[in-house]
């Protein structure tokens, strides 16, 4: 369970997030919605430690943690970026196994076995040896999910998971997120797609643009 309270963030004097609090129960899906420019992505970047909040308290399973300085393997939060950000010089398998080997000190064999398991689960078992530029958008996204899952995160976050994909793939992303939920994964999804959010969410948090902005 993730709890975040009183998150404030401003950039150059413009308040982007105004006292936001949120809570996700273990195994549930929280969707963060709102118009573009409302600060959804900033909120996600704060939760994932890519941006420092001006104020805010964060707890995972009741224990306080600081996302920005959180470099331990505890309280792991995985991220699937809108533009996937796969490593172009590594093949699919290497994309997935690099971090478990470097950050979790898994052996290559161990990391490979786990990665292949995840790839099979995501229907990518035949893609292990090819490079990101050879993948379609939907496949890239699934590799990005596999890469995040390989670190055994407690929470998986998505930034606009439907916006870089063909509209037809919206449904399959929803199914994939549902499937991970069935396996007990806690997930946070930032999206401007209200219908998509209503489809998958256990809880919806609406971020409103600041009046001054």
């Amino acid at each position: 369970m993730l709890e975040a309270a009183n998150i404030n963030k401003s950039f150059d004097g413009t308040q982007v997030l105004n006292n936001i609090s949120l809570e996700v129960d273990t195994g549930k899906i929280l969707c963060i919605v709102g118009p573009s420019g409302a600060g959804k992505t900033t909120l996600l970047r704060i939760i994932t430690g890519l941006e420092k909040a001006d104020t805010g308290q964060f707890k995972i399973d009741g224990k306080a943690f600081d996302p920005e300085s959180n470099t331990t393997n505890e309280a792991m939060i995985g991220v699937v970026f809108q533009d996937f950000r796969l490593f172009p010089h590594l093949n699919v398998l290497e994309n997935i196994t690099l971090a478990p080997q470097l950050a979790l000190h898994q052996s290559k064999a161990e990391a490979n076995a786990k990665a292949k398991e995840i790839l099979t689960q995501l229907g990518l078992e035949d893609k292990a040896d090819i490079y990101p530029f050879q993948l379609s958008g939907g496949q890239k996204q699934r590799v990005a999910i596999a890469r995040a899952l390989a670190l055994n995160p407690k929470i998986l976050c998505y930034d606009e998971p439907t916006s870089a994909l063909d509209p037809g793939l919206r449904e399959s992303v929803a199914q994939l997120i549902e499937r991970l939920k069935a396996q007990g994964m806690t997930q946070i999804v930032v999206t401007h797609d209200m219908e998509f959010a209503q489809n998958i969410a256990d809880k919806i948090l609406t971020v409103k643009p600041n009046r001054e902005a």
Partner: protein
Amino acid sequence: MDGVLKYMLEILPSLLQGTKLTLGLFAITLVLALPIGALVSLGLRSRFKPIQWILKFYVWLMRGTPLLLQLIFIFYGLPVLHIYFERFSAAGFAFVLNYAAYFAEIFRGGFQSVPEGQFEAARVLRLNYSQTIRKIVLPQVTKIVLPSVGNEVINLVKDSSLVYVIGLGDLLRAGNVAMVRDVTLVPLLMVGAIYLALTALFTYLLRKVEQHYSYYH
């Protein structure tokens, strides 16, 4: 005609001796200046301002003055300050310092063209700074900078001829000695041919390295 051939064979050993020195300087410069250049380019991106200033000054100084002047300064000028270099070391020192500055600028451009998103992706995957640079960024930078580095490599082959000024017997000097002694242009033509052969070889090798990195785009 036979006479010319015979003469060419006669002076070839001394030209090859000079080529050896040229290649030695070339190898030392490349092996040291490339990693130093990469480190300097990282320093140029450092958030610690004094490091940035010092390195910017270094790059400005090295790129802003002729290599020939730097060579003369290190070999003839530094002894005034009681810093002595043996000839070849002086040449190596000057060339490494000079080329590292050019490589640093090339690498700086390379680092800038790796999207910020790659750093962030590495960060959320819990890679530390050095892992991110070694495993994610440098391999991509290498591919990006190869054509520009290749240019400098070819330049280096030819720039090495500047060492004549401190009395080192490189390829050009060997040709020059033979030309002045025997009053003929043949040695210079041979020198030209050897430089061309060397640059052709390095161009070919660089193309091979580029091909090696063309497995993704």
